[in-house]
């Protein structure tokens, strides 16, 4: 198995991808990337997925009454002999 960047096989290049991608190196300058259409396509697809992930999962509200549950547990934990601390309603 060769680790010469100029003579790297696809398998060797792909085995190094986690480190190459994770370190933020400019892969476009890698000799194997420049010479191999399949590996370029693979990387482009992975980049597309990573990019799409950032637009995924719009933030959502929890159900309205979750606060009541949390407050009830807070009161339980603070002890029954203390006066109820709130009745704190959620601010508008």
């Amino acid at each position: 198995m060769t680790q010469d960047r100029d003579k790297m096989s696809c398998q060797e290049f792909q085995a190094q991808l986690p480190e190459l991608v994770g370190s933020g190196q400019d892969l476009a300058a890698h000799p194997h990337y420049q010479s191999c259409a399949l590996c370029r396509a693979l990387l482009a697809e992975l980049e597309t997925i990573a990019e799409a992930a950032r637009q995924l999962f719009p933030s959502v509200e929890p159900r309205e009454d979750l606060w009541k549950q949390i407050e009830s547990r807070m009161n339980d934990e603070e002890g029954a002999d203390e006066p109820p601390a709130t009745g704190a309603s959620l601010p508008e």
Partner: protein
Amino acid sequence: MSRFSSPTLPPDPSSHGNDEKISSSSTIHKNANPGPLTSPSPVETEALSRAQAGDHRAFAQLYSLHKRRIYSLCLRMVGNVAEAEDLTQEAFLQLHRKIGTFRGDSAFSTWLHRLAINVVLMQLRKKGLSLVSLDEVMEPTPEEGPGRSFGAPDLSLMGAIDRLALERAVADLPAGYRIIFILHDVEGYEHNEIATMLDCSIGNSKSQLHKARLKLRDALRVHSTQETQP
């Protein structure tokens, strides 16, 4: 330095909420997610100070300010509404117990975000998920090795990705992969931060993220093939 020390407001991810297809970008990947930090407002600072003194109304205010972000984080990480609600509840109860220990060394929102992640991870470990041992379990099998990626590129992935298909594929990832993918690609944490949170090596974090993306690619290719069949 972590990007989370930057006091910039993140864009509202819900602005993409109605797009079923997500346009791709072919730029070389470098995570640009601004991460979980929000600038502390005077309202938050005041509420924090009063909540630390035991004021439940102020705590309710903190809940209102952060519930959306924390619930969304939990939902992304576990992919289940009921479980995400339980974890959100547990995160705010932990906050209630620990709020007096917050000293302002980091932004409150960052501190709370980390606290919530720890709650989720603790829960997953209780359920028997060992994030570290997953490294061993998920070493590539012969058919999953690096060479498996040969084959014609799937051009459908190059144009647009079906949002629902991607969300489903993420939800179907093994938990260890999913968590690292969410923390890195969605929440914007760096590998060194993830390694610290998960108590694994930076190399493992990189490796699992890469494998997660490969799995997602495979899942999306299957989805794409099914969609194009008559």
